[in-house]
């Protein structure tokens, strides 16, 4: 036991960083959600069931679910397109790199990309105005929930690509040939071999997309400045105007709610992924 501790000593810097900057904040959030002014109290949890909080939760779920479904379907199609091109082609590398950037590092930049495209002075807006006379930007829908759905899809599809391409690559050509040699048509192969194999990966990826959209903050923060329609923006409001909102520490309860939802989704995702990995390694 002592020897193990001694051996583990060099791991201390790593553990220190992780504990101080990840574990402790998380524990703080979980614990503070149940304590108000030093005493155990469910007051903050109760506030989670107020009209505003429930509305924000519902809109977040709606946003995440819709963009997860759209992103999953379109992303799967794009992933199939990519996988059917030669493995080391430049196009493939470029597309995968672009997908990586858009999916994971582009939150604020995407908001501005859409402002530049279909915002009030956007390129597409002005062009459509000139040619067809329609006002695409209209009532500023880009800055509300509908706009968020469009912009979120923009990073959900690449995320789906990144996660689903390995699954598609795992579909071995031999299986298809075996099916054909046994007399199956292409349609039958897809229906009875490929789709059942891909379904867990597809569902798992869709769940990942859901968690990603649910926890996403930067894009919404950059686009929406009026009101707090979704949960992450409500957390922002709770963090920055405690006095006005009247409920101190509301942010802790909201953050706890977010951890629970994301954790549940990620556990389901991991379970599905383990099932897939068996077949498609």
């Amino acid at each position, binding site marked *: 036991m002592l020897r193990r501790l001694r051996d583990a000593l060099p791991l201390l*810097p790593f553990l220190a960083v992780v504990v101080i900057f990840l574990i402790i904040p998380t524990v703080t959030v979980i614990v503070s959600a149940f304590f108000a002014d030093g005493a155990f109290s469910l007051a903050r949890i109760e506030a989670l069931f107020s009209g505003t909080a429930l509305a924000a939760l519902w809109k977040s779920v709606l946003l995440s679910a819709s963009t997860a479904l759209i992103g999953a379907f379109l992303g799967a199609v794009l992933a199939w397109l990519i996988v059917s091109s030669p493995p080391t082609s430049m196009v493939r590398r470029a597309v995968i*790199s672009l997908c990586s950037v858009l999916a994971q590092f582009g939150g604020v930049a995407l908001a*501005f*990309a859409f402002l530049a495209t279909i915002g009030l002075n956007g390129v597409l807006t002005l062009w459509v105005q000139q040619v067809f006379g329609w006002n695409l930007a209209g009532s500023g829908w880009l800055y509300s929930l509908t706009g968020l759905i469009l912009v979120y899809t923009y990073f959900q599809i690449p995320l789906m690509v990144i996660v689903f391409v390995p699954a598609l690559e795992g579909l071995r050509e031999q299986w298809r040939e075996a099916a054909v040699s046994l007399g199956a048509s292409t349609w039958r192969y897809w229906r009875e071999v490929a789709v059942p194999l891909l379904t867990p990966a597809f569902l798992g990826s869709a769940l990942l997309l859901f968690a990603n959209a649910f926890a996403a903050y930067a894009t919404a923060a950059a686009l929406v400045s009026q009101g707090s329609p979704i949960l992450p923006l409500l*957390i922002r409001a709770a963090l920055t105007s405690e006095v006005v909102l009247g409920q101190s520490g509301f942010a802790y309860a909201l953050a706890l709610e977010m951890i629970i939802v994301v954790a549940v989704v990620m556990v389901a995702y991991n379970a599905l992924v383990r099932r897939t990995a068996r077949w498609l390694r």
Partner: protein
Amino acid sequence: MRRRTLGGKVFRAMLWVAFGLFFLFPLYAMADFSTRNLISGGRTMQAWQNLIADEALYQSIVISLLLAGFTVVAMLLVLVPTMIWVRLRTPWAKGMVEFLCLLPLTIPALVIVVGLRNVYLWVTYFLGESALTLTFVYVVLVLPFAYRAIDAALAAIDLKTLAEAARSLGAGWATTILRVVVPNIWSGILSAAFISIAVVLGEYTIASLSGYQTLQVQIVQIGKTDGPTSVAASLAVLLFGFVLLLVLSLLTRGRRRATVENVVQPGVAA
């Protein structure tokens, strides 16, 4: 070889065009918008010049680049020796280290920043108020990406033999790690470094809610008044990240089989 019908090819081509338009058009729109003179029409490079001319924006670019550099260095210093040590001396800790490294995938950055206030009171007390103190949190954020990359590289070499050989020839641990192991896992290190740079440059959540003026925070602030400049800065960041990752995929040639348990983080920069 799969037989490709003409219909199939046309269908495929149409899909490529559709996706191409959807993804590339906004990027083109950004380039167009950022060079447009909103008041009098016509073209101007003022927005791009502001990247250097505007004092606040330039400062935030410098800070973000410094942050990215510091994060990469800190991450490598913390992670590489730890992972080597785990593989060599404490294999029983592998599960725990892997779990801790992948934990940031499940805990959104937004949650981390809510709980971070007290911790950062201590950090600023000891280390001052610069935005560079964000390095520690960013190291945690990039852990999942870095862990995967370095782990794959370590798995591909025979670490035990290399280390034993070096040690038996009289090398200390520092020399073993720096001069024997690191050159062999160089692709993994590069991969971890480039992805970390991209993550740090794109990070907005923690920086803005902690009140630090990094590049993304500044872009959003400027966006309220000066649309073209913020669009120009956003486009610059996107292109930079894209080039980084493209170069990386060219450098690590050969198809690395990514696994289905892929490395994505809910809510990092999005």
